[in-house]
């Protein structure tokens, strides 16, 4: 169980007209074993925030604390210490996996980063990981191009779980998937979070999908968090006008006549 605290985090990118502030003094908190949903539209800075948390993007200000200890990503050693605790799954199912490695190779590589495993232990670990994310262990020797988009995202989740992290960041992992596939992946994520007691940061632009898996939801706009509230409260009584606008924009099926 790991708690994440982010205080006044600022991330800047180099733009064509000088630096652009993508994340502007964001503070948020994920208590151990809970899921924080982060929702926002394109360009709101939510992906920059996720990348900064795992050291893929440099941070320009603020602090990130894991269980009260400051996170550093300067050296490979720092990154490895962070990688044991925090893992990320990204958006694009097409590039999520190395196209030249089988599912087994991908998972074994991840599982042996921090632990030595002998041959039988590796096979067992691969089977266990695939079953964990709801995949047939028979898929282990396939290449990514022989898998569907939803299956690839599940393998990516399994790879992230292979190191046994305590915090999982899911950055738009269902955005490129069809609705029926998205539903299955959302179910898996929710199930995993409960079964493994993971802390989770679930990022997306689709409000219903984010709300479905989150205990608390933070709404981000132009690099700032405009509202954070428990999911039920946010849905029932949104306080910020932008949250209300987002909620109103969600398409809803008209109630039936029959």
């Amino acid at each position, binding site marked *: 169980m790991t708690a994440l605290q982010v205080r006044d985090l600022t991330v800047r990118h180099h733009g064509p007209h000088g630096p652009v502030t993508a994340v502007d003094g964001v503070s948020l908190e994920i208590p151990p074993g809970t899921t924080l949903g982060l929702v926002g*539209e394109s360009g709101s800075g939510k992906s920059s925030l996720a*990348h900064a948390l*795992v*050291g*893929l993007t440099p941070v320009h200000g603020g602090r990130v604390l894991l269980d009260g200890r400051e996170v550093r990503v300067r050296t*490979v050693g720092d*990154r*490895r210490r*962070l*990688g*044991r605790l*925090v*893992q*990320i*799954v*990204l*958006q*694009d199912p097409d*590039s*999520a996996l*190395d*196209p*030249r490695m089988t599912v087994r190779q991908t998972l074994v*590589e991840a599982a042996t*980063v*921090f632990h030595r495993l002998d041959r039988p232990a590796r096979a067992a670990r691969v089977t266990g990981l695939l079953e964990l994310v709801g995949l047939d262990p028979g898929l282990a020797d396939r290449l990514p191009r022989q898998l569907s988009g939803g299956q690839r995202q599940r393998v*990516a989740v399994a*790879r992230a779980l292979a*190191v046994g992290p305590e915090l999982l960041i899911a950055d738009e992992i269902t955005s490129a998937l*069809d*609705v*029926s596939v*998205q*539903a*299955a992946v*959302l*179910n898996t994520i*929710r199930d995993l979070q409960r079964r493994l007691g993971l802390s989770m940061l679930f990022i997306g*632009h*689709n*409000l*219903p*999908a984010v*709300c*479905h*898996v989150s205990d608390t939801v933070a709404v981000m706009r132009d690099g700032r968090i405009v509202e954070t509230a428990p999911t039920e409260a946010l*849905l029932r009584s949104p306080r910020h006008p932008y949250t209300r*606008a*987002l909620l*109103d*924009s*969600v*398409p*809803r*099926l*008209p*109630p*039936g*006549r*029959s």
Partner: protein
Amino acid sequence: MPLPRRYLRSPMAWITAVMLASLLALALAAPLLWGAAADRPNPSAVLQGPSTAHPFGTDNLGRDVLARVLTATRPSLLLALAATLLGATGGILLGAATAVVGRRARRLLAGLINLLLAFPALLVAMFLAVVFGAGTAGAVLALAVAGIPGFARLAQTLAAAVAGTDHLAAARVLGLRRHRLLWRHVLPNIAEPLLLATTTAAGTALVALAGLSFLGLGVQPPAYDWGQLLNQGLDRIFADPLPALAPGLAVLYAALTFQLLGEVLAGRVARRTPAPRTPAPPPAPSERAEDGLVLQVEDLSVELPTPEGVIRPVCGVDLSLRPGEIVGLVGESGSGKSLTALAIADLLPEQARITRRTLRLLGADLATMTPRQRDRDLATGLAMVFQNPASALNPSLRISTQLTEAVRAHRGMSRTEALTQASDALRQVALPPTVLRARPHQLSGGQRQRVMIAAGLMMRPGLIIADEPTTALDVTVQRQITQLLSGIRRDSGAAILFISHDIALVGEFCDRVLVMYAGTIVESLPADRLATGARHPYTHALVASVPDLGADRDRPLPTVPGAPPDPLAPAPGCPFEPRCPRRRDRCAEQAPPLGDLDAEQRVACWNPVPVEVLAS
């Protein structure tokens, strides 16, 4: 690189193989066969012209030029290969390293590569050959160093593409060490194009080495290669062109071999998709026109040739729209919804084969028209709005041009008239007339989509087909665009075919909904029946799998197990049968037709969801 079988049928691949084999054979055998003749001076036959004994004459020591040219194959090839391999190794390591080192080191390396690239390789090689001292080793080393920046840039570009992928980011977060990232994840994924580049570079190195020797900077006498022989031949070219021509031809032959080898390896010599050979059947006249339909489509099918075989992504689609009606066409990726729209608008690529029983736009039969007439009818009767407004507008033309060009071409309108109408059209989509002077990159995504809609309105069309017009936009902008389309329908009476993957959006915004699965329409129903009155098991499942803000979050979302059928292996029967919870024996054998349930709803299912289940 595995060589696909199609190479066996490519004459160019065979020619290249023969040329390469001949070069290799010469390099191996020529010094053994003609080496002695090439080195034997003959004072009595100095600087002779062509004769039967010496087809290309003799040189200043009376040695046979032909024998020397053939014998020089080995050193010329070997030295070029050595220089290429050295340069490639250095360059690739330098370039690929940019993907795994830290930010600052990456910028430094990139700057260095940029700096070196500013100088042409030949000039660098000449400079270095002078510095290293004229001679074989100096020339090879010079060429290797001169080749480094080119390889480094290529490797850098390729590695940057890998570095941007999610799997490399994931590998970094896993804490893999740099050398492992480089060897395991970066290099294997860029090896193929680099191998290809090495082939071409070997040809370039061969030519450059010949050039250095030609200048007197390469191989020094008594050793010789083609470049040096060419240099010697050039001195007497006016008396005797052949001694210069022979080594020249040898360089040319080798250069062409490597060039063609590159083409063959890149797969550019074998034809990929064979164009369908059978001519399209002459279009039959459409069935009788039904009164008052804006669009009448019956039994529309599309066949597309792909590298793996011919697929039928659209099979037997019927649809019709009345004036002022908004119809949603909904389906998941690969269901054929966009291809249906493109087929109606006659925008499919040439290889696609379209068949239909009826295709009428505003009552006119598109099938029997001349292409010219059809263009006019489609241009004036139908407007298309595409998915990605960022790429659907031409980046280099002003909005004014893009709005007015169609009316000027088809209605013969003057520039001023057209501009006035364009301002009106912009006002209809709530944009100021100043937008006319802008270029697309100065507008936001939502503004661009409004411009696309305005461009459609310029023609006052009877039908607007909007193909996923909001998918690339944010959800708050999506609402504005659908409201805009509703307003246009109200004001102009145009019918709208709205294509989307989002069943909730379609249900909210459209009058009637067509659900598409694997190229067929499986259900047609009024939008307000979607939530509780869908009868096809697929529609039912699709509706259920949408996360609902009001739903109980502790219950898992209903899902559809399995995957859509492989378009390359169509099975008889209902395409949804393998995934269907309500399948019967009949479903696997016979595809259900789209049959009327009542006046407003049609479903293609042998065993539709009963109403009582829906009600509960």
